[in-house]
């Protein structure tokens, strides 16, 4: 890991305009941006559409390649690419989740997942691309198996959160599901043997040094042994799963424990957090700002420090920040101002 000495700036590369309402979320296609395949982004909005953006190979500028509309009838809250980059899942306030396939450059809705009682807020693929998780204001989390032909079958319905579930996120290597909620907790779910039954193996709440208000998002570091969460309580928290510090349970699960809290950096709700492969944590909040944090190497123990503050990154709330899956120093952000911005983290002399 690089040590981050010197000064950095977040340079705005391009502003992507086209959505006619707030942009809630975005996702880099993990199979693009390498081997000459142009980088691709999906974004979703309160305008009920999903937009596909692609980088032009001649001048590296971004343009909108497709608008996925007339499928969701309400806000599209979240989007996620399958690990192979061929399928895009979109979660909507219309209570459905859609799966789109890229067929020769055109996106077709190939499957619709119905079952939640009301707004679906987040969707996530497991590392193998064989399972999907969704969550809703109905307090439940559903696990779906993706069958041949892109049909999906519900395997399990997880009840445990006492309020709406804001985000679902699979662990980067293990089939462990992490969920965070309006009930201020983060829950971790694992499968019982081969029974297709899932149960909660750990709850991180205020008594485990957790958050005191809604937990909006979470993200893992590259090695999967640390997690960062962000909250309406205006803090970011770092969690660790270390078999040396906390002995694994009989089923092999190593519990997570709180190691650090970053507070005093945002003064309104923090909606989004994303950990880059090289170890930079980006956060986006309702104060219109983006903050970057890195491990503080000057002190012993798990401490993190501010690398950069970008005030007025957008004209309104920043709803999502996400690092490129390939070029580690490219960051995309989405905002209530209806735009997406592509940023480059550059060192300044």
């Amino acid at each position, binding site marked *: 890991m690089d040590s981050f000495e010197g000064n950095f700036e977040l340079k705005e590369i391009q502003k992507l305009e086209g959505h006619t309402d707030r942009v809630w979320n975005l996702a880099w296609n993990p199979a693009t941006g390498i081997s000459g395949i142009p980088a691709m982004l999906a974004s979703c909005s309160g305008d009920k559409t999903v937009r596909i953006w692609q980088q032009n190979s001649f001048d590296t500028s971004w343009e909108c390649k497709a608008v996925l509309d007339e499928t969701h009838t309400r806000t599209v809250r979240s989007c996620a690419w399958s690990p192979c980059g061929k399928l895009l899942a979109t979660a909507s306030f219309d209570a459905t989740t859609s799966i789109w396939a890229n067929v020769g450059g055109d996106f077709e809705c190939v499957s619709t997942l119905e079952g939640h009682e009301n707004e679906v807020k987040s969707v996530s693929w497991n590392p193998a691309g064989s399972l999907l998780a969704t969550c809703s*204001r109905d307090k439940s989390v559903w696990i779906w198996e993706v069958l041949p032909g892109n049909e999906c079958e519900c395997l399990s319905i997880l009840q445990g959160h006492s309020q*709406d579930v804001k985000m679902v996120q699979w662990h980067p290597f293990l089939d462990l599901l992490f969920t965070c909620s309006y009930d201020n907790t983060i829950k971790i779910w694992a499968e019982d043997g081969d029974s297709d039954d899932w149960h909660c193996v750990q709850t991180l709440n205020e008594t485990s040094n957790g958050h005191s208000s*809604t937990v909006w998002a979470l993200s893992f570091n590259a090695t999967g042994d640390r997690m960062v969460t962000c909250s309406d309580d205006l803090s970011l928290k770092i969690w660790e799963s270390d078999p040396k510090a906390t002995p694994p349970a009989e089923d092999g699960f190593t519990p997570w424990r709180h190691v650090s809290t970053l507070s005093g950096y945002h003064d309104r709700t923090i909606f989004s957090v994303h950990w880059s492969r090289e170890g930079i944590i980006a956060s986006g909040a309702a104060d219109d700002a983006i903050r970057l944090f890195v491990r503080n190497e000057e002190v012993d123990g798990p401490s993190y420090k501010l690398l950069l503050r970008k005030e007025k990154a957008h*004209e309104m709330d920043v709803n999502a920040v996400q690092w490129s899956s390939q070029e580690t120093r490219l960051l995309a952000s989405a905002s209530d101002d209806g735009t997406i911005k592509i940023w480059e983290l550059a060192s300044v002399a």
Partner: protein
Amino acid sequence: MGSSFNSCVEFLNWGNVGGLYRIYFCFSPLLFTGLHPYLESLHCNSNSSLFHLFTTPDLFSFIFLTVLHHIRDIKDPEHPYSLEELKVVSEDAVEVNDKHSHVRVTFTPTVQHCSMATIIGLCLRVKLMRSLPPRYKVDIRVAPGTHATEAAVNKQLNDKERVAAALENPGLVDMVDQCLAPTYE
């Protein structure tokens, strides 16, 4: 806003309340002739009405009065009266910090167990969303100690995802629009 407005504003007192600057000043109803149509139609029944305000008078008072004007006529969903008549919102319910583009509205539910508190709060938020420039951050809360489930009501009113979802629910939007009808432009 003309300079006549500035000169007529009389500063009585000001202080820093909860991080928000307030300036109390009084004005005469005559001020509103020839000014912004919202302000012209603002009925001021007392020559010594006190309004809580912010720093420099022209822009700030304009915003403040716009805010107050926009919300005072909102109807209670359960009564044919406006929120101001019911003393659900009053002049001192609005705090504006223009420098930080921040507005906070504190309202007092009619009874401790008022089931309509979240609807009233939603009406206040929608009215301000439709009236204020988008740069404003708006916080809505019930007055401390005035509602049985104060924390839950406040949390819901300030969760923008829940507000966004509520505003895609046709039944709720109808109700909000009815409450906002008197000043709905």
